[in-house]
């Protein structure tokens, strides 16, 4: 999910909520790092598919719970919230936002 992707207002609120979930090692949030693959939001349910840069990192469980809490705080009226951790497609550095790439010293395209 990149910066340019247009989201409906509800999905946009989910994305804003996920921007509070920080990867402490990188110091950037999961949206900027390109870890959020898809957001399906309706007044009845929110479904998020996201990944981690490493399957061997024990932080997965923690990040998923942080994402769930952030969404529930932002949209307390939505009864059904689910965050699924997926490994397909594999995360690739090109999925990072331009801002994140700039932070890590990538040259501008």
């Amino acid at each position, binding site marked *: 999910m990149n910066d340019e992707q247009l989201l409906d207002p509800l999905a946009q609120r989910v994305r804003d909520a996920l921007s509070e979930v920080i990867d402490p090692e*990188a110091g950037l949030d999961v949206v900027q790092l390109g870890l959020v693959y898809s957001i399906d939001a309706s007044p009845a349910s929110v479904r998020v598919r996201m990944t981690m840069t490493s399957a*061997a990192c*024990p932080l*997965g469980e923690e990040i*998923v719970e942080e994402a769930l809490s952030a969404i529930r705080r932002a949209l307390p009226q939505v009864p059904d919230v689910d965050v*699924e951790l997926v490994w397909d497609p594999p995360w690739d550095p090109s999925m990072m936002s331009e801002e994140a790439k700039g932070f*890590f010293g990538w040259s501008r395209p």
Partner: protein
Amino acid sequence: MSEAPGGRDRGAGGPGPRLPLLACAIGSLVLGVLAGLLRAGVAVPVATGEHVAAHALLMIGGFFGTVVSLERAVALGRGWATAAPLASALGAVALWVGAPAGWVAGLQLAAGAVLVAASVRLHRRQPQLHAQVLVVGAACWPAGTLAWIASGSVEAGIGLWISFLVVTIAGERLELSRFMPPAPAARRVFVGLLALVVIASPGWGFAGAPARVALGAGYLLLAGWLLRQDVARRTAREAGLTGFIGRALISGYAWLAIGALLTIAAALVPDPLRWDAALHALLLGFVMAMVFGHAPIIFPAVIRVRMPFHPGFYVPLALLHASLVLRVAGGLAGAPQWRAWGAVGNAIALATFLASVAASVWRGRRGRGRL
């Protein structure tokens, strides 16, 4: 379908069963440190002569091995992978009670084998270079244990055991280095350095100085690679937890380089104090600095507690490095008293670390609900 350690999968047993395993790891660390002090000539309670002989097994298998395999079991999210930290923790208990060496060796071998299996499973989930490196790192642990069993000497396993930790950390850092601008040539160099380390490690016990010099050279070049490619180059400039982790990493890489040079020096002109300096530069300066740096994110992930960042986290890290300078200077100057004082300082740094973790978890409990 997700097979991840996400909200619905509690295969690694949740935080409850993990706590006793972590407690065994910390118990092994405490006893290992006391045994280390006794070895350095400092009179301490609890540790016995047997524990002194078991110092390396308590520290590398009992502490680091249990922590690494627990971390990997949590990442995999499968119950069977918890057998690795369980076997390793039982091995640590066997060491405390002075059980026959065969039991300890068998349990550590089993722990290493399950860690390899868990790492292979993770590689199938994410078939990439860094996951392969973690399999190689994991395999060094049981390989070192086999070298110990085959030779009857703990020393024979040391090279492989250090590489178990160095390669594991390097694999994790290789993964995070992908945040940095793409550098295909650097990845090829990494593979070459890894090959050098893996080929040289088994020779520690039987190939003498040439293998140890080669291993030291491999670690030295790896330290240079990490200093150049690691995301810590960027994150060390940040504030808060991210900056703390970045600075802990860079301090660790400096010790990896120093430990590598000391390994080469000790291999060329062997001396017990010089070896003490080399091994502790690598295992405390590098590996333990990684533990200090990552504790604020690993503890919360493994046992589900909050550990809010506090500038006090720098205190144990600074104590560790300062006391290690004294210890290494003692090794180079041939001054056993400095080494002993350095070892006492190292123990104080570790005690301060455990206290800072406990204080932070306590603050996290009190702060719960406010966020």
